[in-house]
Every structure is written in structure tokens, then in C-alpha cells.
């Protein structure tokens, strides 16, 4: 083996090299179809440009993928995040119109997400229902609950504070990007600053051995689902603030799939075990960059779904082939 190829092998063995290469390729592709892709302008004290747009629009999926990563790492799945987004958006919109202070509105919306996560966690960890099935219940009923809260209407609001969470800018950076970055930092602190991350990986990789070493799988799993619910609630607030209304039918529709896709692209195995938050975020940004690229290239946005399907199958086929080797 030549020195160069050896170095190349070593390089591809670094975790995340594949994701970073994919991200670079997608960004390069976007730049080729749209030379102005990397241009960033400042308008009214806010950054504008395609790259900023990718990050801004990608914020909800980034948020969902943070919680989803933890859930998948325990060997589970959370199909309810889209519905939880709808619930939290509905809670926020209805409360703000009732004149509730913004802080309480946000707290209530987050609390709703937390409860949803707790429900999922209890079904999975205590009642030992398979995760797909357990979270399916909330996926089905969640949108009904959201509609119950909004009385079946699209509740619009004009509270500037709440709207700012979806469309505002701070220090020239759009608020959703800041919220996503902040949640990423907080999640990283939660799992890597404590031993939770280690416990999640241990339970996901070998639940029995972990139990014999004294790790409580119940607590770990419930924590993961609660965090997933919380992240979904944050994403729901942003999505509602973005359109200045809560649409129980469409808020977060199919985003659970994007989040799962982001985690898979980020290299976390669907079987559980080792996980990487930065790579899941990279996966989410790759997906959003592809979406934007398709738009910029003049193709119909409808191609998005096809591209996503092809990408997720390609990644899984690759993993499947590698597993066999």
C-alpha cells in the first residue's frame, strides 16, 4: 500500500469523514448550480444568503435529530416528534392569544413536549412496548390532540415576541439558528457533561450487560424519550412562530422521517449503541442543503422526497453490506 493510499484509508477511518465529505459535495453541487450560493449579505441588521437559509430552514430538523439521536442510540425510535411539534405549536398559539406572558407560553409548550416524551418513555421503558408501536400511538392521536387545543382551526397570532422566535435575528443571526445551536450545546452538555451519554451507549449496545454492571436501562430510556419530546416542542415553537400560526394538520408533517434520516446519515446505527450529535446535525444540514440545492437547480421541489428516499436507502444498503463484511 502506498503512503498516500494508507493516509487516505486512515483519513476515511476518522469518524465523520464520510459525512463531512458528503456535506462538502452537496455544498459544492449547490455552488455549481447556483454560483451565488455562498454569498452572504447583510440587510437591516440580519444576515441573508443561501447558506444562512439552509441553516435557518434546517433548524427544526436539527432540533428533532438531537432528541432522535439519543432515542435511536438506546435502540429505540420516536415516530411521534412531528405530532409533538403540532401539539407544542398549538399550545403556544392558543396561550399567547389568551394574553399569557411569553415566558409562560414557552414554558407551557415545552412542558407539553416533556409530557409527551414522558408518555413515550413510560410505554417503552416500563410497559416494554416496542418503540415503533409505542410512539405510533402518539403519532396517531397527537395531531388530534393538537386540533383539540386549537379547536380545529389554524390559530394565527401577532405577538411580536413569539414571532421573533421564528423570524427574528440576534446579532445579525436568525433566531432559529441560535436556538438550534443553543439546544445542540445544551444536549451535548447533558449527555457528555454527565454520564448519561455513556449509559445511553451502553444500554443501546448491550442492555443486559449494562444492567449487570448496574446501569438502569429504564431511567436512561425515559430520559432519551423525554429529551426527544422536549426537542420536538422547541422545534414546534419555531415552526409556529415562523408561519405566525399553529397548523395542527401540517406542522411538522413528515419531519419525523427527516429526523430519522438525519440520524441515519449521521452514522448512528438503528440498532443502537454509539452515537454522535455533531454528525446527526451534519446529517440534518446535508438534508436541508439538498432540499435547497434542488430548489436552486430549478428542479421541482417535489423531487425532494425522491432524493431523500434514495439517500436513506443508499446509506442503509452501505451499512448492511459493511455489516456483512
Amino acid at each position: 500500500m502506498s503512503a498516500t493510499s494508507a493516509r487516505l484509508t486512515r483519513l476515511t477511518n476518522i469518524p465523520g469523514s464520510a459525512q463531512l465529505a458528503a456535506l462538502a459535495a452537496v455544498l459544492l453541487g449547490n455552488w455549481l448550480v447556483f454560483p451565488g450560493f455562498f454569498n452572504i449579505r447583510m440587510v437591516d441588521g440580519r444576515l441573508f444568503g443561501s447558506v444562512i437559509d439552509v441553516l435557518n430552514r434546517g433548524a427544526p430538523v436539527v432540533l428533532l435529530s438531537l432528541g432522535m439521536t439519543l432515542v435511536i442510540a438506546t435502540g429505540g425510535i420516536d415516530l411521534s416528534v412531528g405530532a409533538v411539534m403540532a401539539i407544542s405549536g398549538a399550545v403556544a398559539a392558543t396561550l399567547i392569544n389568551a394574553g399569557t406572558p411569553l415566558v409562560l407560553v414557552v414554558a407551557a409548550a415545552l412542558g407539553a413536549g416533556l409530557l409527551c416524551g414522558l408518555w413515550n418513555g413510560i410505554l417503552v421503558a416500563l410497559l416494554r412496548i416496542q418503540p415503533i408501536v409505542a410512539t405510533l400511538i402518539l403519532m396517531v392521536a397527537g395531531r388530534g390532540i393538537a386540533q383539540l387545543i386549537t379547536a380545529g382551526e389554524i390559530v394565527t397570532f401577532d405577538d411580536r415576541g413569539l414571532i421573533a422566535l421564528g423570524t427574528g435575528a440576534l446579532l445579525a443571526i436568525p433566531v432559529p439558528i441560535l436556538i438550534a445551536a443553543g439546544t445542540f450545546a445544551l444536549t451535548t452538555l447533558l449527555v457528555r457533561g454527565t454520564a448519561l451519554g455513556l449509559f445511553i451507549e451502553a444500554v443501546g449496545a448491550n442492555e443486559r450487560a449494562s444492567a449487570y454492571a448496574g446501569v438502569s436501562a429504564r431511567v436512561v430510556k425515559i430520559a432519551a424519550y423525554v429529551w426527544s419530546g422536549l426537542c420536538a416542542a422547541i422545534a414546534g415553537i419555531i415552526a409556529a412562530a415562523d408561519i405566525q400560526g399553529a397548523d395542527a394538520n401540517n406542522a411538522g408533517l413528515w419531519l419525523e422521517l427527516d429526523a430519522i434520516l438525519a440520524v441515519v446519515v449521521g452514522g448512528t446505527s438503528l440498532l443502537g449503541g454509539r452515537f454522535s450529535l455533531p454528525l446527526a446535525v451534519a446529517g440534518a444540514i446535508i438534508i436541508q442543503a439538498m432540499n435547497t440545492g434542488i430548489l436552486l437547480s430549478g428542479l421541482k421541489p417535489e423531487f425532494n422526497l425522491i432524493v431523500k428516499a434514495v439517500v436513506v436507502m443508499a446509506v442503509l444498503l452501505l451499512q448492511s453490506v459493511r455489516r456483512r463484511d
Partner: protein
Amino acid sequence: MQVPERKPLLSIEGLTKTYPGVRALDAVDLHLYAGEVHALLGENGAGKSTLIKVLTGLTGRDSGRFVLDGQEISPANVIQATALGIGTVYQEVNLLGNMSVADNLFLGRQPMRLGFVDKRRMRQQAAQIVAKYGLKIDVAAPLGQLSVAVQQIIAIARAVDLSARVLILDEPTASLDTQEVALLFDVMRQLRERGMAIVFVTHFLDQVYAISDRITVLRNGRRVAERLTRELPRIDLVQMMLGHELSETALHRHKPENEAGETLVRFEKYGKRRYMAPFDLSVRRGEIVGVAGLLGSGRTETAKLVFGIERAETGSGRGLVSIDGKPTHIRSPREAIRRGFGYCPEERKTEGIVGSLSVRENIILALQARRGWLRRMPRRQTDEIAARYIRMLDIRTPDAERAIQFLSGGNQQKALLARWLVTEPRFLILDEPTRGIDVGAHAEIIRLIERLCADGLSLLVISSELDEITAYADRVVILRDRAHVAELSGSDVTTSKIMTTIAA
């Protein structure tokens, strides 16, 4: 009495099978005769299950041949083996509990009428089959609702009905009670009279002598002997299985009773129905208590009860635990760990290591779990701990961040020991600590066990290596048929004494 020059129905000749690093079968011969029950015996790792896997086409072989009725055969999968007339019934019945008895008997070969399954005829035929085995059951009932013994018999009936001439019964009696065993034996006798050749794998010696005509003993992948049952005394059989002569050579230093420390932990009437008969067990400070018995005698079951993985039955004086004389309870591994226990399981890969995590993470896992998730040990501290124990126990790994699944068995075992040592335990349970470990590491682990004991740690060591047990144990508990049957101490701790007690 044996007819001279009787030809075996199936001969296995020179069968060799290697897995990476292990020679599972080494030129093994076996001869099965029609109308005989042939017991296949051996401890864990002797090669019984590999032999069955190769014979039924579940896995390949390196060399050797099978001759069935004069024809050389080479089944590539279970279906082919079945077609050739080799039927297998496993301990965990591999039928379908969700389907009816009739469905199970006729899956894939249902009687058809006008292109559809003729359910009525299928039930009639199924009823005829089960009647032949003396079963009075509803063939439309789901198999899962029947007792394990009946399920075993249905599995046998299916195999026989698929024109089996050779029937392999892999530990069929492991979870049966006495009556059920009798039922199964009736069926086996009936089949033997019909000229079937039956391979019977079991670890119950009583059953071997009750039903088998011929015995093959395997040890470490080699055939130790093939004898007629009536010509092989029980004590000789145990010696063959455990690989020892009765002569006693080694001298061991056992602590005299008065030198031993205070009782650290005491279990009274500790047991669980259908799992392990209640036993009394106490371990003193700085004492090594060995646990000996044949496979299936309740060795691992004892460990799992003591460590709280299986909950002992309590109430009316049963299931009592005391530590340092104070009554307490152990209802989960977490509680056991909090009381200063540690457990290195026999199934290292599935119950011990967390394969994809690093050596460092595996070493600190139990200590971190005891501290709780909020009090994370700083990275520098865990690095230091890992480095210290890697050095101290001489764990051979390129670095502490290597995923533990890539280490050899011996180094994985040492890392597991390290996992418990960092928790500074008072009482360690080691289940087959030297299983599947190469000779060099073997000796190291023994030395380590002795050193730990010298440091005042109490140990409960389960091992099928009697040499080892007699070398370090102060006392030995003997198990048979899921019960503690005897305890040897002082100068009684010898391999011969252990073996005669096991064989009694």
C-alpha cells in the same frame, strides 16, 4: 450380546472443525446404531453443539465425513439434513408456539384439496400422529399452550414423520420435571424399538444411565471415549468428562478454619422455584469458595441468585441475606453492587462486555453506574483508572480507547475483572473465569484470583476446572441437579473427592 460386525447406521469419521483461534472439533468419530440411544456427553466447550451443528448442516466442517447407511452424505442445511433422514429437536423447542399442533406437524406439506389446505384431513392426520405417541391433546390448540414436554414430543413426531432415521435430541430434558421426563423416555423407548438411532444430549447422569445404550464423551473438541453404557461406571464417566484421574497429587494450602475471617455474607434458604432449590451459603472475609458441578447442575443459577439478577423467593424464613450479620436484601444487580458485590458472568460476550464501547468505558462502567449519571467522572480520572488497571492486570490492548470486542477473550476477562476491582468490592462472583482463555492468560487469572483473596476480598468462584478450584478454594460447594448437595472444606478439597461427590 452385541451382534458382531453390526454396521452403524450413521458414522462420523475424523470430523474436524475450527473457528478462529479455537479447534472446536478435532478428528472426532461417532458411530450411531439403529435401535440405540446414544448419549453424547461433555462439559461446555467440549464440542457437542458444534458436532450437532455440523451434522445438521447449520455450519460447515474442515474435514471428516459422514456415512449414512453406506452412503457418504454432506448436508448443506437443515432442510437437506431433514430430507436425508436426520431430524433434530432442540432444547428450546424450535416449533411455532403461535400455531396449532396440526399446523406445526404439517407446515410446508399440508394435505391439499382443490388447491387449498384441507384442514379437516390435516387435523385427522395430526390426531392420528399424536395418538401414536399416547398424547391426548386437541390438535387445533396452539402449541404454545402445551407443556414443554408435549411440545418436545410434537417436535419429535414431526421429525419422525418427516422420515427421520436418525433423531438428535439436544438437551430435551433440561426444563422438564420428573414426570415429563418419564413421558419423553417412553417415547424414546418406543422409537428405539422401531429401529431409530437416537442421539441424546443431556447433562443429567441419572438420565444417561436410565435410557442410553452407548455413550460418547467429548472434551475440548476431542472424543475421549465411546463405550457401552453398561460397561462404563459412573465415576469413570465423570472423570472422562472433567478430565482427571483419581490419583491425588497437588498439595494445596487451605486456610485452617480458625484463620479465616468473620462471615461476610450469608444466604439462607435461598432459591427459586423451577430454577434452583433453596440453599444455604456463607462466605467469610478473605475466603475463596469454589462451586463445582456438572453443566446444568445450577452453577450459573447460584451466581445469578446471589447477584440479584434472579430474585430469590422470600417469606417464611426463606430467601434471607445478611451482610456482616445484618439482615438485608438483594433484589437487583444494582442493589448487589451497592452492597459491594461484583459479578463476572460466564457468557462474557452477551452478559459481560459492552462490545462496541472502549476498554476504558467498560472498565469504569460499574463504578460510574454506582455514582449515578449526574456525578460523571472526569475524563482525566477515567483515563488514569483505565491506564492503572491495564498496567496492573496486564490487559493487552493497543490503547484504552480500543473497542473491547476486538480484544482476545483473556483480555476481555481481565477488563471485566478490572471493572469490578475499580468499585473496590467486598465480594466477587466469578463464573467460569478461565473459560475460552488461552493457557498463558489462564495462569495469570488464577494468580490474580489468589492475589485478590490475599488482599482480603471474598470470592465465589464457579469453575468446571477442578484443578483450578482445588488450587485456590478454601471450601467447595458441590451442586447436582440444581441443588447444593455437599460442601467440602480443608483437606477434603481434592479433585477426587469432588468427583466422587458429583458422581454419587
